[in-house]
């Protein structure tokens, strides 16, 4: 009987409300709401279906007015009640999220729960009361029943519509319950991410402070050092250097970020509000939104912070290493011919400068940190989940889409405009070509060299880049394989094999620096450096070296017995003069090497083309255990070298427009320099210096060089001259007259004057002729193309 079903419904609702509101656990409460809703709506649908069955079958166990009452009036009231139930469920679920975020308090949520329970109870009583009253009126007499039925004639039975609506409401409550866990877990992940960020920023701050403290402590240590305790200071500096490097905080934070992004949900439909009895939804891709936002808005800033910290660490590292090396050199007796006076005050001042830089960086760190926090505050507001107007972590995709729609119509205009621009540019290009073709070869050479001339006002800055080789542990980066190879040869030598290595490479590839560094690393205090026109000292005995290797080899053979030494002969090609040719010296050297006892390790360095020539003429390369070529260099290594040297200058880099060069721009600039310098370290440093202009204050200006090409200025006459000069790494007319014969005066000397006037050849302070350092490698390549030398190994 329908009336029984009706009563059953009333009873079920009361029981359900009581049952659900007895749950204290929020998740159980939410799930309970959904389950009981399903139960209640099931009963309603069952009631409606039974009424419909009776109506269709004309089996009126109940009066027809009763049946119509169920469909027309009762279901209307129940539907509204069920909407209220759904809304209560939504509001409570929203409240749970807001409580999790911290927007509302727990007690407020509890109050909402209790109040909503009461509201539902009252609503149900009202529905029940109304239904009973209405029913009693309708079924009071035949007349009232008949009047009621008549009042509904002509109207469509709304049963199917109500049924559908109730089923929809049921699905909505199920969805609210299903999504609740997902939403809460996503919210928790976002909260965790925010905590990670706070920790990261705190740790970064602490790192800056720590580096500052290290710099401060070093100043104190230097202050307390006396000349007799340089060894102790060296050990202390090594300890501090070891403490500089720490874990990469950005990497740790990024990894955690990635984990969180992976754990977040993909596109999820969540209910966000109510309007006119409708439940409003929003689709949110939690994972994608956070990923895009972090990468677009946050990571660049955090990368800048990390770079700032790395720069300060690098500068401190470089400075302390320089001080340590200077101190080491001062107590190494092999280097007595070099002036290595120790100036402790200068060391302190350099550290103080770094400390100042660290403090400034810390201020910059704070402003970037504030910016990051502001962005989080503004954009990562979890309350926006329920904001009907704003997207959560909005990206610019919508904006791009709108722009696309607007611009679609104006494409044709754009094409026309583009064609006009192309025509204009084409004309300009042709005019430039005509101008270029009008230039003579000499004008192009001069233009090329003038483009590379460094700013003389910037001499302090330039000196750091183009001064004498400075020892730095950063030099090791990218050279690890070479060093390992060298170490192997040294190990084999210590086991009794012959020990000899030749270093090769283009000019300025770092042969001398590499040689000096491995000498210090593996043969500290046991290195004998041999150069023409210098004094050689071994075990208290000395000899004046001129241009002949023979007496040198004899001296070494005599006074190195019983002890292991490294003979370091840099720039092999400089062992020639008007009296003795390189070929004579090399022959003597090779003969001498065979006679040297196994306690001498021999290392020499020379350019690729000289080595190729000597290999052809004397099988020179076969005498050596290993040839280590220093031409291969990665872009990262050049970037680090430039970055660290620039850091030491304590200058900021700005563009011509006055904007500070960002990290990405810096990277791109270095890349261009690296490519333009044909991947050569020394040329890269020179090109960098040429690009930097002096400015007042604490910054320098980056002025990109014009990309001029060096014209091919080789001809039949100067090829042979340039080959001779490049093979000897410096010569003079007297020497050239000796080797060329009278043809030099008759034919070649005029060309030399021409090359000097074009600054292709330059004269040193000692009157020696050399190829301009900005052109030497390029000239080598041209001679290689002409097959006059071979500069590839």
């Amino acid at each position, binding site marked *: 009987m329908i009336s029984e079903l009706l009563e059953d419904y009333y009873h079920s609702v009361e029981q359900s409300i009581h049952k659900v509101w007895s749950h204290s656990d929020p998740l159980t409460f939410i799930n309970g709401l959904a389950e009981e809703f399903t139960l209640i709506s099931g009963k309603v649908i069952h009631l409606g279906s039974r009424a419909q069955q009776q109506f269709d079958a004309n089996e009126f166990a109940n009066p027809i007015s009763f049946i119509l009452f169920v469909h027309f009036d009762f279901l209307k009231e129940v539907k509204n009640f069920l909407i209220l139930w759904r809304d209560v469920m939504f509001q409570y679920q929203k409240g749970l999220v807001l409580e999790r975020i911290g927007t509302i308090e727990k007690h407020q949520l509890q109050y909402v729960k209790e109040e909503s329970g009461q509201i539902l109870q009252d609503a149900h009583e009202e529905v029940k009361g109304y239904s009973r009253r209405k029913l009693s009126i309708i079924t009071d007499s035949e007349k009232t029943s008949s009047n009621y039925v008549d009042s509904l004639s002509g109207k469509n039975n709304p049963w199917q519509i109500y049924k559908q609506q109730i089923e929809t409401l049921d699905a909505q409550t199920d969805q609210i319950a299903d999504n609740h866990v997902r939403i809460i877990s996503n919210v928790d992940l976002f909260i965790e991410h925010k905590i990670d960020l706070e920790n990261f920023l705190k740790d970064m701050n602490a790192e800056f402070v720590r580096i500052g403290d290290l710099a401060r402590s070093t100043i104190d240590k230097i202050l307390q050092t006396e000349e007799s305790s340089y060894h102790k200071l060296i050990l202390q500096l090594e300890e501090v250097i070891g403490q500089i490097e720490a874990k990469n905080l950005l990497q740790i934070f990024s990894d955690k970020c990635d984990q969180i992004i992976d754990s977040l949900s993909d596109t999820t439909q969540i209910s966000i509000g109510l309007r006119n009895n409708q439940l409003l939804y929003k689709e949110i891709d939690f994972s994608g939104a956070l990923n895009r936002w972090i990468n677009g808005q946050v990571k660049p800033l955090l990368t800048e912070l990390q770079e700032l910290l790395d720069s300060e660490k690098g500068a401190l590292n470089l400075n302390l290493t320089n001080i340590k090396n200077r101190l080491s050199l001062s107590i190494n007796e092999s280097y007595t011919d070099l002036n290595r006076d120790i100036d402790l005050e200068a060391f302190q001042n350099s550290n103080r400068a770094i400390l100042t830089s660290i403090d400034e960086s810390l201020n910059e760190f704070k402003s970037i940190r504030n910016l990051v926090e502001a962005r989080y505050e503004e954009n990562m507001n979890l309350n926006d989940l329920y904001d009907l107007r704003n997207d959560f972590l909005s990206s610019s995709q919508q904006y791009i889409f709108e722009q696309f729609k607007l611009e679609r119509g104006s494409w044709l205009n754009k094409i026309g405009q583009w064609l006009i621009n192309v025509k204009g540019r*084409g004309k300009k*290009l*042709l005019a*430039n*070509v005509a101008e*270029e*073709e009008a230039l003579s070869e000499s004008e192009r050479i001069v233009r090329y060299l003038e483009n590379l001339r460094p700013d003389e006002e910037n001499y302090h800055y330039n000196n750091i880049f183009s001064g004498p080789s400075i020892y730095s542990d950063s030099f090791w980066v990218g050279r690890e394989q070479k060093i390992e190879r060298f170490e192997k040869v040294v190990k084999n030598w210590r086991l009794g094999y012959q020990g000899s290595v030749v270093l090769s490479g283009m000019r300025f590839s770092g042969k001398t620096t590499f040689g000096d560094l491995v000498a210090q690393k593996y043969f500290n205090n046991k290195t004998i450096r041999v150069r023409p026109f210098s004094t050689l000292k071994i075990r208290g005995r000395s000899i004046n070296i001129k241009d002949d290797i023979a007496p040198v080899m004899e001296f070494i053979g005599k006074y190195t017995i019983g002890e292991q030494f490294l003979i370091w002969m840099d720039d092999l090609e400089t062992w*020639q003069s008007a009296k003795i*040719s*390189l*070929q*004579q010296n090399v022959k003597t050297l090779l003969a001498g090497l065979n006679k040297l006892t196994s306690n001498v390790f021999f290392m020499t360095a020379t350019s690729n083309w000289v080595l*190729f*020539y000597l290999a*052809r*003429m004397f099988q020179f390369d076969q005498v050596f255990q290993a040839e280590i070529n220093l031409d291969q260099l990665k872009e990262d290594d050049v970037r680090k070298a430039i970055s660290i040297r620039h850091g030491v200058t304590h200058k900021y880099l700005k563009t011509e427009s006055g904007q500070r060069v960002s990290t990405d721009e810096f990277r791109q600039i270095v890349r261009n320099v690296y*490519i*333009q310098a*044909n991947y050569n370290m020394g040329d890269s440093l020179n090109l960098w210096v040429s690009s930097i202009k002096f400015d007042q204050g604490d910054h320098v200006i980056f002025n990109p060089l*014009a*990309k001029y*090409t*060096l014209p091919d200025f080789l001809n*039949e006459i100067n*090829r*042979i001259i340039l*080959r*001779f000069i490049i093979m000897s790494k410096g010569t003079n007319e007297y020497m050239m007259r000796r*080797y*060329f*014969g*009278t*043809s030099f005066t008759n*034919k070649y000397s005029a060309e030399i004057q021409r090359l000097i006037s074009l600054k292709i050849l330059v004269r040193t302070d000692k009157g020696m002729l050399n190829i301009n350092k900005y052109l030497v490698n*390029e000239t080598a*390549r041209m001679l290689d193309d*002409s*097959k*006059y*030398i*071979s500069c590839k190994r």
Partner: protein
Amino acid sequence: MNDFNSILTEYNWSHLIIISILFLLIYIIFLFVRRVIVIIPMAKWIKIKFINFLNIFFIYFGPLATLILASIFVLIKPALHGLILGLALLLAFSHIRNFLNGRIINSNEMFSKGQLVRISDKSGIITEIGKLGLRIRSDDGLHYFPYQTLLTSGYTLSSGDKIGGYYHLSLRMTELMDEDQMENLTNIILSSPYLDGDHKPEFYRSLSSEGHLNIKVLVKEEVHLHELMKLLEENGFDATLSKS
């Protein structure tokens, strides 16, 4: 199959005109690029490779485009146009052959005006490098050689740095050289800037002439050989050129 047949057979004048215009546009663009490449900033080695590519393009583009257009011309009306083209080819075959050969020969820039060259039994200076052949001035007048002749008879370049080579020097010794003199001679030769570093000079006694020491040397240009001989003379060694 039908599509393939239609590609082969269905051509008309509009196709020919459109493809001609397309080829023309391509040619103009490449011409423009070749003109402006000099000021386009790029790494030198890339520029060189690109210029080489452009040179190859210009050598082969013309004949290839002509071939394609001629094919389309024939396919418009195979019988009639085939006949016309056949006749034209017959009449101009040797010129076309010389033209194509010339493009290939001149692609590696072997010839330049003023260069000494020997073709067949004629030796002279190149006065003109034409599209179909070379003009050479010798002692007995002006000669014209189509490129086909160069390929069939061959040619010898007699100057320029592309014809350096091995030479044998013969040193006359009035008395036996002692070790120091030999050392001195070796040093002069080895340290001389005139030698090509690709080959180590070889010293050997001449079997045919007693009292002579032969040295086999490699030079980049013939003029360097003479300068080397002069250098030896200045150092007291009488050197002459012997047959290689």
